[in-house]
């Protein structure tokens, strides 16, 4: 018994080491550049693929294997530099989190490129020379390579420590991580610092991927499989903290190794549960520190200017088209129009907390999905009609907003965003695993509209009425005292508190309102599709919401609307017409990011202002 537990712990250590390698690069990059690098998983995957190509083509033996692994890591480092220099460097001044949009474009492009270069089949790399077999530990066999990995983690941590504490470059990196103001003070050196940090971070990701070669097959799903977990580790450890990331990786690795002995089905959600608990107890992660001065780090957000006449005319024209054109459209166009109307509300609901509230959510799909499930569960279990289901949707989502929001709005920045993600994943796994209630991943079928709304045109007008209405109400709230109070809390929490505002309650109510609005969208989506699945609240849908808001421009009122229109339409067109739609969608996103760093609506507004 004891020997089994010991070896179980050792297995956990080996996984922890692998996880730490990826997370270390991510945390270093975030610490200095504040970029939420979604493409880190892609760099990891590239590391694995490149290592496979190099190792299988180089002569067998120690040189071929280890040389190949290191070369792969370095090449990935260069890829990282290219991404930084060609893309990210141009948008550092964009609003917070905007860079996430760009890195997501990179993810899409790398997915299709990897498919084109390496083909669809999983690739199995050779085992490491000298470390093929196993050793006996108290009579239980344990792979040598896993033993090797257990040592790699601490060694890399030690080398990074030396690099950061014994070199001038490292001192600068630490200074920049600790204090954002320092980065500005570095002046010209800032560019070099960012580029080199990106090189290091990408190398670590590549190394992490390459070292998986003797362990796992190389496949096209590696990027997304690792990225969420890597972020979890970084956040649990405390953003920017290497020792924190190491501790967090150990924690996750051991929880995973022993958790499955007790609850075999906990695999889906364990990491997120741990993160939720850690963040509730320690709002800045295990070893993270609150930002040196929240006050100085404030980004000055521009005010919402009244829309220019041209812009207002454009908005009215859009509404007119939405109202008048559909009777002349075919059924499929109506389906797309309905979906766009729903996405507009979904994006507007996220924007409500993200724009005026300054709280990003990485898990907004939870409320969309819970709205859909709120309706569908009533259909499934009590055969409720659509009208009741649509009422239940915002209620279910709002209830989740009350509970989840109470925890989330206490945190700030990426920590808050990651806690929303944790709750979303918990909700998702409940929908996924509570088969008796939700039907599991096979979903709930037969969520059909009432007879009067079964006609596509009728349903479109119903969706338009509710979505447009709710979106306008949200806009109204933004311009009302409540929206101002929300902005006040974002602009200066100190001042807001000093004039009697209860920032927590204001943010909480905003969170609940956003959840309710997302729930309306989710309920409408359920009846539009006729069925409900856990994918409605999975990470990709949360990412969609973020992309729509960022693409449109988080700092403008019409941003989410423009973003939802553009993203849903582009996505639908590309997906339908091109096999390599991910490549194209990624390229389109990169172009938009480079040319419109304020988002589409922001750019339109500026153009209108210039003309005026």
């Amino acid at each position, binding site marked *: 018994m004891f020997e089994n537990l010991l070896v179980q712990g050792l297995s956990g250590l080996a996984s922890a080491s692998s996880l730490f390698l990826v997370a270390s690069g991510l945390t270093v990059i975030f610490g200095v550049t504040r970029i939420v690098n979604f493409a880190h998983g892609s760099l990891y995957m590239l590391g694995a693929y490149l290592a496979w190509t190099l190792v299988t083509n180089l002569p067998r033996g120690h040189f071929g294997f280890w040389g190949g692994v290191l070369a792969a890591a370095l090449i990935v480092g260069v890829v990282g530099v290219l991404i930084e220099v060609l893309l990210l460097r141009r948008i550092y001044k964009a609003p917070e989190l905007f860079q996430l949009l760009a890195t997501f474009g990179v993810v899409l492009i790398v997915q299709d490129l990897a498919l084109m270069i390496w083909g669809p089949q999983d690739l199995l790399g050779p085992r490491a020379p000298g470390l093929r077999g196993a050793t006996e530990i108290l009579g239980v066999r344990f792979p040598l390579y896993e033993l090797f990995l257990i040592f790699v983690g601490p060694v890399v941590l030690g080398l990074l420590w030396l690099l950061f504490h014994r070199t001038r470059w490292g001192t600068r990196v630490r200074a920049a991580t600790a204090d954002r103001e320092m980065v500005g003070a570095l002046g010209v050196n800032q560019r070099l610092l960012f580029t080199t940090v990106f090189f290091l971070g990408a190398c670590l990701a590549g190394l992490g991927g390459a070292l998986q070669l003797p362990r796992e097959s190389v496949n096209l799903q590696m990027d997304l499989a690792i990225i969420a977990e890597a972020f979890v580790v970084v956040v649990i450890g405390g953003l920017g903290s290497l020792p924190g990331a190491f501790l967090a990786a150990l924690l996750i690795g051991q929880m995973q190794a022993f958790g499955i002995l007790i609850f075999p089905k906990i695999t889906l959600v364990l990491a997120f549960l741990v993160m939720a608990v850690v963040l509730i107890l320690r709002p800045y992660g295990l070893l993270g520190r609150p930002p040196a001065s929240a006050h100085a780090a404030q980004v000055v957000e*521009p005010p919402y200017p009244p829309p220019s006449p041209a812009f207002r005319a454009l908005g009215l024209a859009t509404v007119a088209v939405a109202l008048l054109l559909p009777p002349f459209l075919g059924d499929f166009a109506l389906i797309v129009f309905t979906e766009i109307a729903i996405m507009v509300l979904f994006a507007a609901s996220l924007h409500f907390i993200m724009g005026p509230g300054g709280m990003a959510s990485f898990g907004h799909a939870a409320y969309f999905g819970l709205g859909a499930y709120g309706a569908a569960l009533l259909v499934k279990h009590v055969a409720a009609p659509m009208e009741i289901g649509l009422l239940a949707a915002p209620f279910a989502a709002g209830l989740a907003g009350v509970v989840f929001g109470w925890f989330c709005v206490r945190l700030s920045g990426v920590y808050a965003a990651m806690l929303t993600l944790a709750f979303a994943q918990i909700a998702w796994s409940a929908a996924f695993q509570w088969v008796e209630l939700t039907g599991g991943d096979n979903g709930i079928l037969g969520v059909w509209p009432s007879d009067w709304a079964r006609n596509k045109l009728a349903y479109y007008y119903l969706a338009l009425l509710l979505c447009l209405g709710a979106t306008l109400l949200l806009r109204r709230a933004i311009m009302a005292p409540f929206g101002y*109070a929300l902005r*006040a809390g974002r602009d*200066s929490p100190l001042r807001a508190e*000093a004039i009697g*505002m*209860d920032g927590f309650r*204001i943010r909480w*109510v905003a969170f609940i309102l956003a959840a309710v609005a997302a729930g309306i969208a989710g309920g409408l989506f359920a009846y539009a599709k006729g069925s409900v699945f856990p994918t409605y609240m999975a990470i990709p849908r949360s990412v969609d919401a973020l992309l729509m808001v960022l693409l449109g421009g988080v700092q403008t009122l019409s941003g989410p609307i423009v973003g939802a229109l553009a993203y849903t339409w582009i996505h639908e067109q590309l997906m339908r017409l091109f096999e390599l739609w991910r490549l194209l969608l990624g390229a389109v996103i990169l172009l938009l990011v480079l040319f419109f760093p304020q988002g589409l609506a922001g750019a339109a507004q500026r153009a209108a202002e210039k003309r005026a």
Partner: protein
Amino acid sequence: MTLRVEDLHKSFGGVQAVAGVSLEVAAGELVALIGPNGAGKSTCFNMLNGQLRPDRGRVVLKGEDITGLPPRAVWRRGVGRTFQITATFASMSVLENVQMALLSHRRRLFDLWRPVAREDPAEALALLARVGMQAQAGRPCGVLAYGDLKRVELAIALANAPALLLMDEPTAGMAPAERVALMELTARIARDSGIAVLFTEHDMDVVFAHADRILVLDRGRPIAEGRPAEVRADARVREVYLGTGATHGGH
């Protein structure tokens, strides 16, 4: 007496930041809290407006014990505050900044319907007029000069007709001419409206020109209190301001 502070104590990790501070401020009176860096002025201030909870002692406002209440509750009881580094809402106009304080005062923050733009601006404009900022009402706070921001803060602080104004380094970062103007303005408003003012200040010219009374702190302890002339003559104050830590420690 508008504000009565009794025997405040606060320590951070074994370091005594404030020890035994007591003071009183009457309506219409300007009291300055001075002392060298690290004397405990800011800690003292933060305990008065609720950002910090004292280890010991009481803060009494108009006869009501407000010790340990959060800042927003302290504000609701009539304590306005300005900050050493100005804190305003950068994405709003000057007028809107003041309107926010008024809306909060009237407990209308959870109004989801009536646009702020349709609020009657008269009261906010009147407040701005009092601090001489009426002409800039429409400008975003994010683009104002620093001295103007200080005035806006003063207008915000006056929005709920406070009994007490807490001003942390009100003239820090301003040009000398502006300093005098701002403090004269403050003194006039305080006397006209019967507001008690407690402020900390580095600039001794400002302190001695405008304060009715002065309390001097050193290492968290009060070492002198009185009218400007008395304090100016106090030997210990001179020592603290002119001498070095070594001489101080030697006694």
